[in-house]
């Protein structure tokens, strides 16, 4: 069983590039060049230098002593929250802006839900002096005012997506439309491991720095490269893809994915795509997605804006279908409680997305000598208002 994308852009049954002909030249240009660009020594040097000096990598692999004691197992946290801009998102935007430069593009577009990917994109565009337009659902613009302000300060233009449900999936539609209308000078920085091939693979490779570091960091701390489990939250799944990547072909490492159950998987207000989704096509790839029996894409719900995407990356659909990944879903309430718990046990306020991964201990019991690495994908500053409202702080 392979967990790498094949030459046609598929992970098993999932992936591909279901795009209108108008996008074909852009996506084809990327498909035929991305690996050569990424493997070029000068690209690698520039990418690694920026990850080190600008992002602050390697991010620490931190042994969470009190959390480990509480759950009677060995828990390590991979601290992507300590990256510049506060989450794993920047690993991908640094990589893609360097690809865009090598393709001679002078205009960047992106979609964003909560604003984290928008901020990470606006950041690298400022760094490179490239024009940046971020599409964001009109409703999300109202909900995420601080991130909108950040993007504006960084010099990006934030364009409201007013179509459909006015949230992340509509922002993605608008970004794709922009790309259709600007096919030559523009690169579209997709923020998750989704979209038409080669995006899921390209984003996964940029994020794979996470598991690459885990391997040598764990070797230093525990004398072995392979943990017993890697755990990550999944919306579109870029942080998870990066956290799993170097362990996918290592059967001794258990892969655990945590989705957002919202108010409960069967409540009608959920984003647990693997449980509720069916095979279909969203934003250019064949994958599991939440939809009506008639094939209309439905609006997911989660308290975490970064997880309420109606699809999941094709790699993750493959991990689900083949059984390589163990999938769990965590409710808003359990996630919020786990976020508060981490804050008080370890002095780390996690992003609510990340809090979902931390709630795994409710559903799964690990052995005392298991090594469990949890992807701490982002910090909670952006979510302070949600925490305040929820806990009446």
């Amino acid at each position: 069983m392979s967990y790498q994308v094949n030459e046609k852009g598929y992970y098993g049954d999932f992936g591909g590039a279901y795009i209108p002909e108008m996008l074909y030249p852009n996506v084809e240009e990327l498909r035929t060049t991305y690996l050569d660009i990424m493997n070029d020594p000068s690209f690698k040097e520039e990418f690694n230098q920026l990850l080190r000096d600008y992002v602050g990598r390697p991010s620490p692999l931190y042994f969470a002593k009190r959390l480990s004691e509480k759950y009677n197992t060995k828990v390590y946290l991979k601290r992507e929250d300590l990256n510049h801009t506060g989450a794993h998102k920047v690993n991908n935007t640094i990589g893609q802006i360097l690809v865009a430069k090598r393709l001679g593009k002078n205009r960047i577009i992106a979609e964003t839900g909560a604003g984290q990917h928008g901020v990470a994109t606006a950041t690298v565009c400022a760094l490179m002096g490239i024009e940046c337009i971020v599409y964001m659902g009109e409703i999300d613009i109202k909900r995420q005012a601080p991130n909108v302000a950040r993007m504006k300060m960084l010099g990006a233009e934030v364009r409201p997506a007013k179509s459909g449900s006015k949230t992340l999936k509509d922002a993605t539609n608008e970004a794709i439309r922009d790309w259709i209308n600007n096919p030559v000078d523009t690169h579209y920085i997709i923020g998750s491991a989704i979209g038409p091939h080669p995006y899921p693979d390209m984003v996964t490779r940029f994020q794979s720095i996470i598991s690459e570091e885990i391997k040598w960091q764990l070797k230093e701390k525990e004398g072995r490269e392979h943990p017993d489990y890697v755990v990550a939250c999944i919306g579109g799944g870029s942080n998870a893809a990066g956290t799993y990547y170097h362990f996918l072909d290592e059967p001794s490492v258990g892969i655990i994915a945590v989705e957002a159950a919202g108010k409960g998987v069967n409540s009608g207000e959920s984003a647990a795509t693997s449980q509720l989704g069916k095979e279909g096509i969203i934003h250019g790839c064949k994958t599991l997605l939440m939809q009506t029996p008639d094939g209309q894409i439905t609006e997911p719900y989660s308290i975490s804006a970064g997880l309420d995407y109606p699809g999941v990356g094709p790699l993750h659909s493959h991990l689900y279908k083949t059984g390589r990944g163990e999938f769990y879903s965590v409710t808003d309430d359990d996630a919020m409680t786990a976020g508060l718990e981490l804050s008080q046990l370890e002095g780390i306020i996690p992003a609510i997305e990340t809090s979902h991964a931390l709630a795994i201990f409710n559903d799964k019991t690990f052995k005392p000598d298991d090594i469990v690495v949890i992807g701490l994908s982002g910090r909670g500053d952006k979510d302070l208002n949600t925490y305040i409202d929820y806990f009446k702080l």
Partner: protein
Amino acid sequence: MKNRINQKLAEDKRLLSIYFTAGYPSLHDTVKVIKDLEKSGVDMIEIGLPFSDPLADGPTIQESSTAALKNGMTTALLFEQLKDIRKSVNIPLIIMGYFNPMMQYGIEEFCAKCKEIGIDGLIIPDLPVAEYHEHYQETFEKYGLINVFLITPQTSDERIRCIDEVSNGFIYMVSSASTTGAKNTFGSEQQQYFERIEALQLKNPQIVGFGISNKETFLQATKTSKGAIIGSAFIKHLTHNGVDSIEDFVMTIR
């Protein structure tokens, strides 16, 4: 029997094709719109199967799709509305829609139903040529359906030749790098593109779509091509005037 699309393409005239969204403006307008378009002298009709996330469409068609879905439009209902359409309508009918709703209906079942009703072809913007050729062509052909592919000003000559090879009806020439409805006139860039395609001497005739909104753009587009498709401009007409003056709209083009 020869497919109605091929018969129509063999006629010695420039074809006017109209796109509209099924179930819009009202849920049960579908059949009336088709009948009135034929009565008004339209040569071919694209029936839009609404989708929640129509990536290749501009705001006008997206809004009509959202409204149609809100009205309660579904794939099964469209087939139900169209079940007797061939008792009264003779011009070619094409269903244009995105791939996901068709996948969920079941591709084989969808194609069988199209044949049963008398649908002549399909336009599926997000089903790429290679996927079609590898997985679906056989099924489409089994049910006598012509699949229509899009080309754009950015499509290379080599790829256009490959699309021409796989096609057996006409090629849908997207007028400019844009979503539907985005342009109002054609400039020299479009003219050059029209001429480039004409010079390729393709085996399939071409019909131009996207950005055809009035008589002027219709005439410009059909100077070098077999016909043109009007979508957003017709939807706007329906939005403002309802379904009782369809002939008035068609008269302004012809």
